[in-house]
């Protein structure tokens, strides 16, 4: 088991490309931490620097108390699982898991013990004599993980391990990985571009963009209190609704002028806008689809934030319905109860939960109201 400390880590390639910029993070022992962000955000490069597969341009990386910047990957006591794993087709499951250890000349009795232990953890004991061809996709993925487990590492590094699996299997394997973390109690660093995977697996999530950490927080905090426009838009599906609004201060209340209407903000949010000197300025207004209501009860209860809009698209997903409409020419989505009677072409009254409104600085894109 081990904690990790990344201080001012940077990665600059000889051609001048800066992949990771001033990355600072403390990872606790046994933590399941997720690096998430769009393609090219530097999450995999950071993981590869932790693995030692990429040189660190500047900064300090410690695993436990040991500075490992110049330590060879094989001496870092880590194991990796990648998305493009390849199993040895002519070997049995047992040999697939043992092969890496054999290459490192580990004594055969030790190999046997390690493989059997890993097989037990992964529920692969009945399949040890089978060849990869005779396994299902999920079982193959478990063998790939078994190859990492047999090393008995202090830290697991996983780079999009489920990306090659179909949607159903991905959900299944997500549960398997969560169980595995509980069983092994090892530190896991997991890279993904899938925000659902990040939200469901991680104890903490690191959101990255353009090589820079945008926010490090628990899944719930990231969702409820995003620090900037990027995090707000990246976490959550369908994504948060954004539209431009002009701030108007009257006394101790801040109003957001949207679609010819002034929506009063709750006292705490108002205070932030007043203190920030936003009177008369244009800001970005954000609200999650589930905080936009079409039910009469909510509309009656929030008379100050009621809008009328014509439904463009109606999407039934079984347990919920997505209603798409435009407000002030900005496309909006509402996640509502499936019993809604709203249909395309209908003019519907919507209400926002003003407590759940997020306001972002238009220029810096930082949150103002959290």
């Amino acid at each position, binding site marked *: 088991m081990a904690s990790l400390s990344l201080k001012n880590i940077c990665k600059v390639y000889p*051609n*001048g490309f800066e992949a990771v910029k001033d990355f600072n993070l403390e990872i606790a022992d046994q933590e399941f931490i997720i690096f998430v962000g769009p393609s090219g955000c530097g999450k995999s490069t950071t993981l590869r620097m932790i693995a030692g597969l990429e040189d660190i341009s500047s900064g300090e990386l410690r695993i436990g108390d040991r500075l490992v910047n110049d330590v060879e990957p094989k001496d870092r006591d880590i194991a990796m699982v990648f998305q493009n*794993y390849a199993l040895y087709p002519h070997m049995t499951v047992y040999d697939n898991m043992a092969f890496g250890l054999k290459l490192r000349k580990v004594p055969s009795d030790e190999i046997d013990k390690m493989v059997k232990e890993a097989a037990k953890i992964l529920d692969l004991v009945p399949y040890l004599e089978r060849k990869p061809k005779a396994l299902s996709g999920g079982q193959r993925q478990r063998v790939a993980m078994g190859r990492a487990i047999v090393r008995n590492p202090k830290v697991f590094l996983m780079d999009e391990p489920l990306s090659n699996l179909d949607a159903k299997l991905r959900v299944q394997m997500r549960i398997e990985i969560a169980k595995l973390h509980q069983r092994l109690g090892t530190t896991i660093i997991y890279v993904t571009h899938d925000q659902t995977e990040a939200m469901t697996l991680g104890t903490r999530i690191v959101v990255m963009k353009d090589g820079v950490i945008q926010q490090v927080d628990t899944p719930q905090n990231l969702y409820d209190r995003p620090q900037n426009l990027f995090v707000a838009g990246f976490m959550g599906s369908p994504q948060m609704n954004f539209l431009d609004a002009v701030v108007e201060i009257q006394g101790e209340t801040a109003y957001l002028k949207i679609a010819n209407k002034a929506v009063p903000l709750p006292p705490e949010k108002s205070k932030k806008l007043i203190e920030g000197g936003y009177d008369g300025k244009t800001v970005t207004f954000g609200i999650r689809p589930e905080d936009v209501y079409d039910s009469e009860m909510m509309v009656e209860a929030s008379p100050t934030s009621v809008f009328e809009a014509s439904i463009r698209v109606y999407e039934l997903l079984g347990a919920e319905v997505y209603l798409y409409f435009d407000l002030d020419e900005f496309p909006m989505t509402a996640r509502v109860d499936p019993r809604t009677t709203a249909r395309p072409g209908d003019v519907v009254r919507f209400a926002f939960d003003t407590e759940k409104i997020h306001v972002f600085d238009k220029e810096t894109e930082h949150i103002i109201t959290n």
Partner: protein
Amino acid sequence: MNKRDAAEKIKDLNELTGAGLKVESIKNGDITLHGTFPADVLVRIIDEIKAADSREGFLRAVLEGRFTETEIQERAERYGFSAEKRYAVLLIEQSKAGASATLLSEIFAGDGDNLIMPINDHSAIFIKELSGKKEKDMLNKTAESIVSTVNTELMEKVRVSYGRPVTGVVQIQESYLQAKLAMEVAGIFYTERYVISCDELGIGRLIAELPVTLCELFMDEICGEKKKFSLSDDELKMINSYFDRNLSLAETARDLYIHRNTLTYRIEKLQKKTGLDIRNFDDAVTLKIALMVDRYLEYKTANS
């Protein structure tokens, strides 16, 4: 061959191998020899002949361009290669000596005409038989899979490049040379990539094909006598960020955590230094190419 020519050849052989042979006679093209021959050299020669007379030896000779097209066609069938099958060459380079060829043979060899041959301790060639319509996707997936496997199993850094798919062994050298070029160009310009296709080399390919003298002339024209810009790390960081953000001042200022006016001031300072105003598209292109040519010349000097 007459006796005199034969004696010359045997003299060469003696010098190369430490043998002590003499020509006694020559009849019907056969030379009768007398003397001694070192046993270890004899074993080595036999091994070499055996290796050359194998599938691997044949392909090695093809890649090195030692056979003519007709010779390849004649021999290909003997070694079980079809003239219609599609192949591509992947080049695997490890940062340290490792067992990647052994490891990868366990995964890929035995599947069709696939063959993995070590070139030296650091690199190996993978000749892959292709099937199906999506050849390039298959190649890319294989290359990524090689990187993942070497990373996870051997815990070593590795880069894989690949050439275009070709038909029959006759064209395999072409695919190999493309893979080699891709590896070289990526080593100069795209060091952040682990998988490099010969079809994604962009402007790097163009520069890598230019004669050094022409590059020097270009640098002379752009930078003057010094033939080089002396730019600080901060200046390079600003330039790269500006290029990466498609010449957007606002985006670059945000990326560098500086005010837009500060960025404008720095760009103007750079203009005084280089004579190039990167807010102007033509100047931005010139500087981008000049920086790449500079890298290429540095590489050429280091490897000359």
